């Protein structure tokens, strides 16, 4: 997706993310923050987005939800708001708050996953990202890539196992 194409669809995606955040937080200020952060996140996925299909809307929804939870995490860690306001937001047992150690571990894990993705062949990587990041189903991926669903499932499985094994090995080391 080119920059011009992204700028064309950006207002509608921004409005979509704003409405999701508004439902979640119940106020326009936080929704504005989420919409802004969401657009920046979407910009990172610009190259993977395709104007011809509407998968970018699904991706925008997921990014908006991620930004909402991320904002809760930030506020919790910064203690900007009373904990009781946001303590009830996340379900019990869900790790919305993270310690610096956990954040560092997560960052390392992300790097490891990015590295493992580079070790995949391009088709596997593409299918993995379509399934993982864009949230597309097997049938949708099959329709978009003109590959049979069974093959898509097989390739996705292979990619996942490869990444999992590589990460397990790194952890052992």
């Amino acid at each position, binding site marked *: 997706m080119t920059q011009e194409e992204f700028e064309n669809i950006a207002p509608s995606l921004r409005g979509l993310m704003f409405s999701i955040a508004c*439902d*979640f937080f119940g106020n326009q200020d936080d929704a504005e923050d989420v919409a802004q952060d969401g657009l920046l996140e979407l910009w990172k996925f610009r190259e993977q987005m395709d104007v011809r299909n509407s998968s970018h809307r699904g991706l925008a929804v*997921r*990014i908006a*939800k*991620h930004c*909402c*939870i*991320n904002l809760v995490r930030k506020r919790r860690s910064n203690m900007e708001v009373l904990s009781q306001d946001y303590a009830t*937001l*996340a*379900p019990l*047992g*869900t*790790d*919305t708050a993270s310690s610096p150690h956990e954040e560092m*571990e*997560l960052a390392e*894990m*992300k790097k*490891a*996953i990015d590295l493992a993705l580079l070790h995949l062949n391009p088709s596997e990587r593409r299918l993995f990202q379509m*399934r*993982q*990041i864009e*949230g597309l*189903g*097997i049938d949708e991926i099959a329709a978009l890539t003109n590959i049979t669903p069974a093959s898509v*499932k*097989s390739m*996705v*499985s292979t990619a*996942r*196992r490869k*990444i*999992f094994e590589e*990460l*397990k090995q790194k*952890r052992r080391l």
Partner: protein
Amino acid sequence: MTHQETNQLIERYLEGNTTPEEEHRLALEVARDDAPKEWKIISAMLGELITDEAIFDRMMADRKTKVTPLKPIRRIKPWYYIAAAACVILALSVSILLFTRKESDIEPKLIARTTTERIKPSSSKSDGQAHTKDIILKEAEPTEAAETQSVKTDIDVRETETEVKTEEPAVMQDIPQSTETRQTEGDAGPKFFPITNPKRLEYTPEEIEQLRQRAKEKYLEWIELERQIIEMEQKEMAELTDSQDE
């Protein structure tokens, strides 16, 4: 979700057989603080987007299903209303009753009191002894009526009798009955019947005549005293004018 179920789900995920909903459930499970290390890898593989989307969806679902604890609506039972109405009616009726009784107290009453004046005994006494009774008829003041011997017109005379007895026992017990009527009302000994209600005054014609005579005498005495006072005043005035002339 049990540990085994989560492991099964992880296996299905690695095989590519999980649906987006199952992946959301798995993301929530492996994102737990107490998750094993292998699960953390799966969590990282699923990525923040899936995990956060799962958290977001679950939170929104919880909010929808969760009933916000509002202040309980106070529903007053019907019998509370009935009890309250009954209390109000009772209070009103009591206050009205007291008010009307107070008003009746304000009305002038006749009170019997002992005085130094004496009335000649009645000739109809059975024992023939000379009974005397000191009687004064006067209007009761409203404030005094409630405190002293004043008796409400609608109360039985007997009640008043006991009140008066307790207040002035020494005097009252010494006073014998003076009429036949009083003798017939009580045979248990000497009693004092204060004159409270004109309807209950049942003096004999002789006693009434004596009372009239006594009143006439007193009236004449009062006239005489008034005449003397006027004469003295005239004398004083005359002396005063003489002294001024001199």
